[in-house]
């Protein structure tokens, strides 16, 4: 057994892909033209797999803010906030995120992955229990593992199963951390948050909601699913990311619990990493302002999602969930999904390919993500590409 023998399985999977002449995990985008267009393999391509929900990556105000920060604060912070100090922008962004979510305070992390890793590893130790939805993101599982909590899955979107497991915990239920997501990234389906909050009220416990795919997308002010359902006050912790609706990179957690500030001193993924670059903080602050004053972007995103969902549904495709910015098409068979994905790329449409075991229920998915920046004509072009393959 050599050091690398653990990769034998991966190596053979990679060889299978090479034999098919397709590698969806190594796509090179030669040139980015706009939030929705790029050049791939020399072809002009519509980007429909970016999670760039509001299309803010090229917003002139965000670019100007980043440029100013770059010129006045430099290229990086060169260290952790605990050791090297906090730039004022980092703290201001935390206060702005807290105000946006009607919460007391916030912590900014260097990536969305680290937000979950940093919060869960610090919050849930070996004597604690975490009950998480089985379809939660890998960052949530990894955070639980890092903290050493007793981690138990409940059936996806099944509040009844959550209640059953809280009942089994007896007195421990009141200290249990329940973790769900607003919109799940693979299928684009929403959590039944009303029912989950009802269960939490009955048994006790704490609720963490990851709104990575729903912040900027749902709710009158764009806070996410909690806001849309009038449940913001029921979440103990809300986690989010800058790398989707806000068009940057980074993550955060907001909470009303005054102890949130203590997490900074206990969270290794917060302490032992460099804080985000000033330009990233500046563009994120500006994008948050744009998000807050631009409800029309959410409307356009919704309209585009409905247009794509309706178009693909009319073609007879099996879709993962009702309309949302994630439109996932179920394809029978791994090889078929790979070939389908490649044909779409050759037709000038870039989407995501999701294969088991990363997918729920072992299905293969062609995952599209819609942006407010897509034009109706671009959405029609994506539908037309799917139509060609339907009749191929």
């Amino acid at each position, binding site marked *: 057994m050599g050091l690398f023998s653990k990769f034998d399985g991966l190596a053979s999977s990679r060889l299978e892909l090479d034999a098919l002449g397709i590698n969806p995990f190594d796509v090179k985008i030669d040139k980015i033209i706009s939030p929705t267009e790029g050049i791939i393999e020399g072809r002009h391509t519509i980007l429909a797999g970016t999670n760039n929900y509001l299309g803010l990556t090229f917003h002139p105000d965000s670019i100007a803010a980043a440029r100013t920060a770059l010129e006045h604060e430099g290229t990086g912070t060169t260290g952790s906030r605990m050791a090297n100090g906090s730039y004022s922008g980092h703290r201001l962004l935390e206060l702005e995120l807290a105000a946006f979510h009607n919460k007391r305070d916030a912590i900014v992390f260097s990536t969305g992955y680290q937000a979950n890793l940093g919060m869960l590893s610090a919050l849930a130790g070996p004597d604690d229990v975490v009950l998480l939805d*089985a379809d939660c993101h890998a960052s949530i*599982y990894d955070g639980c593992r890092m903290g050493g909590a007793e981690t138990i*899955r409940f059936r996806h979107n099944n509040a009844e199963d959550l209640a059953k497991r809280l009942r*089994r*915990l007896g007195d421990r239920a009141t200290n249990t951390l329940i973790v769900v997501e607003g919109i799940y990234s693979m299928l684009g389906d929403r959590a039944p948050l009303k029912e989950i909050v009802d269960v939490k009220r009955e048994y006790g416990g704490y609720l963490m909601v990851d709104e990575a795919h729903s912040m900027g997308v749902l709710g009158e002010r764009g806070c996410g699913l909690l806001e849309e359902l009038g449940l913001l006050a029921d979440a103990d912790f809300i986690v989010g990311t800058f790398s989707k609706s806000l068009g940057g990179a980074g993550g955060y957690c907001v909470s009303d619990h005054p102890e949130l500030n203590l997490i900074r001193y206990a969270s290794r993924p917060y302490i032992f990493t460099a804080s985000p670059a000033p330009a990233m903080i500046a563009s994120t602050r500006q994008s948050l302002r744009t998000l807050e004053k631009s409800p029309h972007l959410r409307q356009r995103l919704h309209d585009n999602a409905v247009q794509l969902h309706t178009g693909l549904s009319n073609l007879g495709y099996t879709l993962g969930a009702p309309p949302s910015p994630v439109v996932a098409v179920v394809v029978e068979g791994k090889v078929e999904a790979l070939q389908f994905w490649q044909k779409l790329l050759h037709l000038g449409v870039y989407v995501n390919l999701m294969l*088991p*075991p990363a997918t729920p229920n*072992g299905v293969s998915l062609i995952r599209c993500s819609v942006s407010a920046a897509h034009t109706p004509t671009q959405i029609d072009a994506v539908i037309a590409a799917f139509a060609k393959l339907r009749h191929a």
Partner: protein
Amino acid sequence: MTEYDRILADLYKGLTPLNKGNIALTENTELLGDLDLDSLKTMELLLFVEDSFDISIPVSILPDVKTIGDLALQIEKIVSA
């Protein structure tokens, strides 16, 4: 019948629909190596066992489980806790 035997019998029952190759099941049968249970099928099995014994199985036990006997031992620990 001991608790361990009762758990084993229940595991055999839960594995029946997943045992596509009709392999003779023993304590030493490997879930992945012999029965080819991927993570999804393993989760199906765990859900069956959890409901059967009215317990919740933490995900952290999975790396220690290779055979049906390993799983039975872990369940016995949870049931008797």
